């Protein structure tokens, strides 16, 4: 497993733990009220699990297993995947700042835009590695 995949997958595991921790607190609060402010953590719970865990893990595994060489080198442009990793995590925290921490609509919007950027950079990286058996 390449070094970048290790970073991405470990980050995904951390988000899994964060997401499940907030989820556990929210579920407990539903049955045995703890603190009303807890509901403010719902967007962070969703963001950590959807983007931080599921999307990030998928990217980490894709970076690992997509063909790097088939018929000829697939020009992997690793820098694009590195940028995607940074953008995705920056985007997640901007979205959490814009929702849970009420930093404002522009911070939330910036977070969503940066997340789109992450996906575009990841797609730019992965595109040439998505090949048929014939190398097409």
């Amino acid at each position, binding site marked *: 497993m390449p070094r970048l*995949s290790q970073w991405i997958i470990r980050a995904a595991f951390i988000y899994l733990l964060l997401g*499940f921790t907030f989820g556990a607190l929210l579920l407990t609060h539903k049955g045995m009220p703890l603190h009303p402010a807890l509901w403010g953590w719902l967007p962070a719970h969703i963001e950590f699990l959807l983007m931080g865990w599921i999307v990030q893990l998928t990217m980490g595994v894709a970076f690992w297993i997509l063909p790097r060489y088939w018929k000829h080198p697939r020009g992997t442009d690793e820098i694009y995947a590195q940028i995607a990793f940074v953008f995705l995590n920056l985007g997640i925290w901007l979205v959490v700042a814009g929702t849970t921490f009420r930093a404002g609509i522009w911070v939330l919007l910036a977070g969503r835009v940066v997340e789109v950027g992450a996906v575009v950079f990841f797609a730019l990286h992965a595109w040439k590695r998505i090949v048929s058996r014939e190398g097409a």
Partner: protein
Amino acid sequence: MPPLTRWYIKSALVYLTAALLLAVILALPINLPLFIRYMNPAYFHLFLVGWVTQMIFGVIYWMFPIITRAQPRGNEQLGWASYALLNVGLLLRAIGEPLVSTRPEAGLGWLLAVSALLQWLAAVLFVVLAWPRVKEKYRGE
């Protein structure tokens, strides 16, 4: 494919079916019983925890680089414990959440706290199990 992975993936498929069936029921243009109507969060969690996360856990346990030939996938008991905790916790939520919502006076809120604790422990145990396997390919001692 190791037995634990088979359990994870088959359970994931059962949850996907259950989640989509529940979605069909929730979409019915009839006056549904309150208990069913309060199962909307359960639908999301049957889908995202029961199907998506459980499928991921099963594939990770199967395909991530092995640690050593002697104990390729780490402590298997930890994996089984995580599997059991996740599933018991999730089922407890699916039943407990609408129960608590429809009968708030019954004092069943602790069901949700137990469900939350079980699922949280499942995630922690799985990360403990899988973390050492996020590494280079095993090339022998």
